[in-house]
């Protein structure tokens, strides 16, 4: 039984790591710019597509991931500067609509470029090495992703809490008018936030495609879980999002083991229950 629990926890952590890579960008962008970026998961999947194209050209997984990550970062910036910036001053509904439009465009563009069929690439040999744990073998890739998620968490923590740039981001996050009064270039902070958020999504998608094939529109279902995580943590609470990713990831694994009939439902039950008791989320501020 203990072994089984270890396996489920590991599988949950692995899943949670992907949730975190999506949710971190989503909540960071929301926290700073107050834009609910519906296209975020579409960027995640697009990262996968770009990675598999680069991989088929170069045959190198690492180059593919790097190029895809940067490309998505740049696409994020382009979308922010070209489409979202003009909408900051008006109702947030319009921002939601424009990011939804971007989602549709990205989905159909991927279908046009890469076709409707699912696509995937192979795990690089160095990550395919199997590691024995409690009687089962896992590819090294598993631990790689979990580690990367932790590294991302630490890096974001340092960037936000220990640097001057982080201070500027946090002050924009708190009160944008005050930040502007203090001569912080909030426009640039917004763009940088979009860049970092998209970078994380791009990296997540690019590395995922070695384990999970991508198809156009896959992001539409991923964004739902990402929203659940972000709302559970409290909208805009970055570090809470890591904890709630892990809560959701492991809860899903455990429900599968013990109450498989209800596992999909229970995630939403958890969210509803938390929102009833703490409408501002587990880690959010009142």
């Amino acid at each position, binding site marked *: 039984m203990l*072994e*089984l629990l270890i*396996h*489920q926890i*590991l*599988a*949950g952590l*692995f*899943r949670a790591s*992907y949730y975190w890579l999506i949710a971190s960008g989503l909540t960071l962008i929301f926290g700073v710019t107050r834009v609910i970026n519906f296209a975020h998961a579409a960027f995640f999947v697009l990262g996968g597509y770009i990675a598999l194209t680069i991989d088929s050209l170069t045959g190198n997984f690492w180059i593919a991931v790097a190029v895809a990550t940067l490309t998505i970062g740049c696409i994020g910036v382009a979308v922010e500067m070209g489409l979202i910036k003009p909408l900051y001053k008006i109702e947030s509904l319009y921002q939601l609509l424009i990011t939804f439009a971007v989602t549709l465009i990205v*989905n*159909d563009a991927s*279908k046009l470029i890469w*076709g*409707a*069929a*699912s*696509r*995937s690439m*192979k*795990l690089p040999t160095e990550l*395919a090495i*199997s590691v024995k744990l409690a009687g*089962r*073998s*896992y*590819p090294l*890739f598993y631990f790689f992703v979990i580690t990367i998620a932790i590294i991302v968490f630490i890096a974001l923590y340092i960037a936000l809490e220990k640097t001057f740039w982080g201070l500027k981001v946090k002050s924009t996050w708190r009160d944008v008018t005050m930040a502007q009064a203090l001569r912080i270039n909030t426009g640039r902070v917004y763009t940088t936030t979009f860049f970092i958020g998209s970078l994380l999504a791009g990296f997540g998608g690019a590395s*995922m495609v070695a*384990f*999970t*094939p991508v*198809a*156009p*529109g*896959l992001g*539409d*279902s*991923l964004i*739902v879980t990402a929203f659940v995580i972000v709302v559970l943590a409290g909208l805009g609470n970055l570090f809470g999002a890591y904890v709630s990713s892990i809560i959701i990831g492991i809860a*899903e*694994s455990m429900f*599968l*083991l013990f109450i*498989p*009939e209800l*596992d*999909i439902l229970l995630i939403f039950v958890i969210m509803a229950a938390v929102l009833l008791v703490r409408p501002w989320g587990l880690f959010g501020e009142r």
Partner: protein
Amino acid sequence: MVSPDRRRFLGTVAAGVVGIAVGAGLGWSLRLPETREEKVTFTVPGPTVTVTREGQTVTVTREVTAKRTLPKDTIKIGVLGIRSGPWATYGTLIEEGAVLAMEEINAAGGILGAKISLAIRDEAADVVKQARELVEAEKVDFLVGVDSSGNAMRVGPIMSELNKILVVTHAATHRFTEELVYKQKIKQLFRVSVPVYQDGILAAYVAKDLPVKKWAGINPDYEYGRVSWQFFKDTLSKLRSDVEFVSEQFNRSPGTTDFSPFLSAALGAGAEGIYTTNWALEAVTMHRQMKSLGIYDQVMAVINPMSYSMDVVYELGKDYPTAKHGTWVSGRYVWFYPKTSINERFVESFRRRWGRYPAYSSETTYTAIHMLKAAIELTGSLDLDTLISAMEGMVVLSPAGARWIRPDDHQAIYDVPYGKITHVGGEIPILTDLVTRSAWEYYRSPPF
């Protein structure tokens, strides 16, 4: 099927009979007092016609159009398939079959001279709205396609109101034919593809002969997944008393990108075999993850009913994993079965047109259009009731073999085998150790 030349000949003969009858009648009325009697017998299809002619030669002028014609020059067929989202590839597969049928039929002169045209819509964008628009705005004569069982159950009930024939070519829920056609008597609905009897019941016949006693199910969490798993369990428990179903999981579909917790829970429950009806993207994901998590080395056999679909086969290709006692898969048609000239010709022309082996929903859609053609040619009519009664009980010779359209539930009865994924070199694996059972044996039959 009646060929145009033979039809023209029969028409002429019939016209001749009518002409002579008229002539005879006229002759009889003009007869002279002393006459001699002559009997002439014509043989035409149907009852023998005897015309009695008396008197001298009479000249009769007659004007008859012998050729059967349709009231229109174009027959428009609406095609529904999933064209957006993670399953978008299936809409393309349906489209490829429809386009090939249209091109071939039009090149050979159309249906009784009328050309076919297609109107293709995305069923994922509200299937009911799309079907209505196809019928009301695009004025289609028939509808074919539909990938999702949920969509088939939504669009089925409105077909009696729209009063058009819908031939389903992929959606597999047994409720479509058992409930909508058999119980609710919506006579406009037909299905030329196999229902879940294939996914659930025939799969149990495969499992019966495997050395697996503990089965785990990992199935998509909607009607198709749940019903197939239920059929599998029910049938296998009847066929073998020593099997156990140790774990049952239902994954979100579409949208499951990581099967590891499901697989881990199944192994934890001691599964020796895994039964999954995940398909398309999720089938690819699951097989790949089972391989990288080493699960293929730990279970004896895997059954995945729809995974000899060409999108899955091409995507996994040479890496399609095989378990010790086989990865058993099937489809609604597999391209190399049966070995008939019709099938070989179809595969050949499909490959020429699209550069790939035909997927099952391409074949079923191709067949649906040919079935409509046969019904129209047989009756010479576009009248709905005439066509429906022509299609009930019709035997369609198709690439997948002879399909009999069972009149009670409008379900095509034909055999599709299961087989073991085997790599023989080349781009895609083939199936060996085929399990071929007659559809009569494993299809449920009315009364339901």
